[in-house]
C-alpha cells in the first residue's frame, strides 16, 4: 500500500503549485504524475511516486553512500 516506485522526470508542466505535473518514466512505462509535492524536482531527477504523486526527490549521493556503507564505515569488517 505504501509502495512507492522510483522514476525519472522527463518533463515538467505548469507553474501552479497545486497542479504542477510531469511525465515520469518507470523503466519502459511513462506516466503523468503530480509534482506538487516536489517543487524542487527538475528534468533528469529521480522521484519516488506513490498513488499518482511524487513524494520525494531521490538523493543520488545518499544512494551511493548507502551502497558503499559497509566498505566505508566498517572497513575492518570487510577484510
Amino acid at each position, binding site marked *: 500500500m*505504501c509502495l512507492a516506485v*522510483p522514476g525519472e522526470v522527463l518533463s515538467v508542466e505548469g507553474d501552479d503549485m*497545486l497542479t504542477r505535473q510531469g511525465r515520469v518514466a*518507470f523503466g519502459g512505462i511513462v506516466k503523468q504524475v503530480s509534482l506538487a509535492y516536489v517543487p524542487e524536482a527538475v528534468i533528469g531527477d529521480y522521484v519516488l511516486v506513490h498513488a499518482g504523486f511524487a513524494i520525494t526527490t531521490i538523493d543520488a549521493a545518499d544512494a551511493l553512500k548507502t*551502497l558503499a556503507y559497509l566498505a566505508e564505515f*566498517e572497513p575492518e569488517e570487510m577484510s
Partner: protein
Amino acid sequence: MKYVDEFRDAALARRHAEAIARITTRPWTLMEVCGGQTHSIVRHGIDQLLPQGVELLHGPGCPVCVTPAESIDMAVAIAGEAGVIFCSFGDMLRVPGHEGSLLAAKARGADVRMVYSPLDALKIARETPDRDVVFFAIGFETTAPATAMTVVQAARENIENFFLLVSHVLVPPAIEALLNDPDNQVQGFLAAGHVCTVMGYWEYEPIARRYRVPIVVTGFEPVDLLQGIYLCLRQLEEGRAEVENQYSRSVRRDGNRTAQELMRRVFTIRPQRWRGIGEIAASGLGLTAEYARYDARVRFDRVGIAAELPTECIAGAILRGLKKPVDCPAFGTRCTPERPLGATMVSSEGACAAYYRYRRHVPSRTDVASSIGQETSP
C-alpha cells in the same frame, strides 16, 4: 543508477548478512512496521539470512489490514446507494465486512471502480456531474497527502459531487500502543521508509528515548532491509536507543514539509479503531471543518458501529507482533487468498498473504541467498 537493481545486488546483500552475523552475540526481536517491508522480507527470504535467534515480527503497517470492519460496512452501504460511483484502491475491494466485500457489492450491481490515485476518482466526478462519486481514502501518512491534494483541488474547482470516506491512520501512535502492551516483545523497530519520507523521523526521537528502543528508518529493497537490521542490531548490542536513518536517499529528518502543510490544512487528528487491535487515541485522520462538506459520512448520514467479525482469524495478534501467520490453525487451509478469513490474507502486503505466496515450499537458506538479485521488476 535506477535505484532498484543496485539495492538487490546479491553479493552486497550477502556481505550485509555476514556483517550482521559478526556483530550479533545474542537473540534479539525486531519488528518491521510496514507491510511493504514484510512483503519484501518474505519474498527475498531476508529473515532466513539472519543468525539463529534474531527474529523479525511483522507489524501493523498494512492499511488494508487495519481498516476496521465498520468502515468496510459503511463503504458497502454507500456503494449500494442509488447513483453512487464508489472508487477504491484495488487491495480494499476483497476485504470482508459484515455484509461482504466491495467486490460482492459490485456483483450485486453497485458501481464500484478500482482507481490507482484519488485524482482518478476526482476525474470521474468531474466527468459525471450528475452522479455522486465517493473515494475510500485509506492508507498511512504516505497516502494521506494524495487525498489532501485531491480535496483541495476539488474545492478549488468547486466540484460538488465528490466525497471521501476517510479512514487514514497514523504510524507513531500505533508504535506507542505496541510498546505499551504488557505482552510486547519488540526490542527494536525498522520504521517505514515511505511514511517517514512524508513525515520525517523527528516524531520517533521521543519514542526511542522514552521506551529505550532503537528505531531505524529503513527502505524496502534487500540491501536496505539488511542494512536497517544491521544498524538496529548494532544499537542493541551497544546498548544504544536512537533514531537512525538508513533510507537517506529518500527520507530527511523533517520529511516533506509541503505535504505536511497540506495535510494540516485538510485533516484533523482523531481517535481511530484499528482492525484486530482496537481504538488508539489520536491515530486517525478526519476532515477539518473547512472541508467537512466532502465527508461521505455526513453526505450519506452514516455512523459507524464498532464491531469485530466473529472469526477464528488471529490477524489481531499478528498485527501486534504476538503471533506469526503459521501459528494460525486456519492458515493455508480454511484461510487462503481466494477465501480469506481476515484482511492479513487479503491484502498483498498482509503478512499471511506474503507467507502464503512465498512459503508454500520453504526453501533452504542457500536457495534463498541465491534468489536475491534475480528479480528486477519494481
